[in-house]
């Protein structure tokens, strides 16, 4: 191939694989999580407000190899957590806008890293609060550190990290649903 064509082709490939503004995939519930809520026989619940606590490690947007990853829910990752809870509860048949029990909270850590060498990692930390008719029933922080196989090549590593975000949220919520005190607070 002529060198004159090769250079722009290489540049185009590198440019297309980095420096983009991307959107995290919309949340998709884990059916295992949904079934866990369903089997727990809890009361109807509504989802209140989730705030974002400013701080190091609570990225918005998330930066992955020079590309930015924004939340599809009003560019807010705190709203992403609220939406995830809402979807899980709705699929489990437990979501009711007029319920006496309300789940709210705050996103405290939110980051994804894909170094040039080594695994991709995702870190989420959120505070979950359950109130029944205004009375505090549960207040705990849940954390997840997720690890997956990554790649030196940005065109492989970036889409893999993008596709991973909802899975990290599912894992965070799995931690919450596995907490007997949380399930008890919803009964």
């Amino acid at each position, binding site marked *: 191939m002529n060198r004159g064509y090769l250079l722009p082709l290489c540049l185009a*490939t590198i440019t297309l694989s980095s420096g983009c503004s991307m959107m995290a995939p919309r949340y998709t*519930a884990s*059916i295992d999580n*949904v079934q866990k809520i369903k089997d727990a026989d809890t009361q109807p619940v509504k989802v209140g407000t989730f705030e974002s606590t400013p701080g190091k490690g609570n990225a918005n947007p998330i930066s992955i190899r020079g590309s930015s990853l924004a939340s599809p829910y009003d560019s807010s990752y705190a709203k992403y957590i609220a939406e995830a809870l809402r*979807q899980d509860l709705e*699929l489990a048949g437990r979501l009711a806008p007029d319920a006496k029990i309300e789940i709210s909270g705050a996103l405290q850590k939110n980051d994804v890293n894909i170094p040039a060498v080594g695994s991709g990692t995702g870190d989420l930390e959120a505070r979950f609060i359950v109130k029944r008719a205004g009375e505090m029933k549960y207040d705990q922080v849940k954390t997840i550190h997720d690890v997956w196989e990554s790649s030196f*090549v940005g065109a492989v590593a970036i*889409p*893999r990290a993008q*596709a991973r975000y909802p899975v990290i949220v599912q894992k965070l919520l799995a931690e919450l649903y596995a907490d007997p005190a949380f399930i008890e607070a919803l009964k």
Partner: protein
Amino acid sequence: MQSLRLGFMMAVVIMAAGCAHQMTIRADIAGLALPAGATPIPKNVGLHISPDNRAKEVTTPGGGGDKVSYRPYADMETGLYKVFGNTFQNVDLLSTLSDVNSIAKHSLTLIAIPEITTTSSSNGVFTWMATDFTVQLSCKFTDVAGREVATVSSTGTGHAEFSDLKSDFSVAGERASRDALEKFQAAVLQSEALRK
């Protein structure tokens, strides 16, 4: 120096070319509801996806000679659960077909076993993302003894332009799975065999 730079860029392109790029075909299930006037089937259904199918990753063509890989069953599981929640009295996950305790606990009378096949292609030369997707969904319904009651199928298609794919690499696949789920929901509601 220029040769070194060119060599480095070629190495990056070679490493990226022919790779399978991760994407998903998870449908956005917001608004996927029972149509007005439709009546759910008064039966409890168990959705069964085998662990092998759940973990199955497929690789199909993307653009520029590259490939895309995704997990069709894991990606469509939530959409299927939502459709069954809309169209039946109740839906529960059935981890194994021989799980008699779950069958009894949830009063299941039907078991749904989906089969998903996909194709993809791209009109892009310089980008790896698939611009066109097809999702074929076929679901066998049996009674709890394993006797076939009905098979319901649908085919969904999804297309995306480069402008859509810039921010969401998976959008063509997501549109195809949403289309397949909407058509599948309509077909389930129309099935007389499932209402008997």
